[in-house]
């Protein structure tokens, strides 16, 4: 890929998260308005738009905002993003495992919690196998 094309792609990538915020705002507004809940529609859409706006406004001054807006450009920023993603996944998986046991203790089927645990476990296993072979 040429340098110009790479720079163009990077510029476009910076707008993916803000565009996602606008889409999410529209989605929230549409869902809550469809249920006649105007206040929640305004609040939820407003929060998403404000979040996207803050990222756009501060991404040049704040590295945190820049990383939240984009996945980072150099090796340290990519590492930060990877570690943050791993930490996020750990917390979600921990919640799923705890909830699966809570449901089992109540004598109920773990339902979606069990599915999340199974998918997470298989994904981790496959990732370790593939990544260890790649070196």
């Amino acid at each position: 890929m040429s340098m110009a094309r790479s720079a163009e792609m990077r510029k476009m990538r910076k707008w993916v998260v803000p565009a996602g915020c606008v889409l999410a705002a529209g989605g929230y507004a549409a869902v809550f308005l469809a249920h006649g809940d105007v206040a929640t529609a305004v609040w939820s859409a407003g929060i998403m738009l404000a979040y996207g706006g803050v990222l756009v406004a501060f991404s040049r001054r704040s590295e945190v905002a820049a990383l939240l807006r984009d996945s980072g450009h150099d090796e340290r920023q990519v590492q930060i993003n990877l570690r943050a993603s791993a930490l996020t996944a750990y917390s979600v998986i921990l919640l799923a495992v705890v909830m699966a046991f809570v449901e089992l203790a109540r004598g109920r089927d773990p339902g979606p919690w069990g599915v999340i645990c199974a998918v997470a476990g298989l994904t981790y296993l496959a990732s370790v196998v593939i990544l260890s072979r790649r070196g």
Partner: protein
Amino acid sequence: MQNDVRELRGAKGLSQQALGQALGVSRQTINAIEQGRYDPSLPLAIRLARHFGRAVEEVFHVDGEVS
């Protein structure tokens, strides 16, 4: 890992921003390296050392090791 990046950069009169641009990394990454909060990858360490006309081991020092 300790390093002499701050001293070498200062001797050249470069800002963190300028050094980061020359190496294709952010100003914050140069700052993190100088502060010893981030150990760069081997390719980046080599690029940094070459930028100052030094060998990697002349710029980066294992903690507790005197160069």
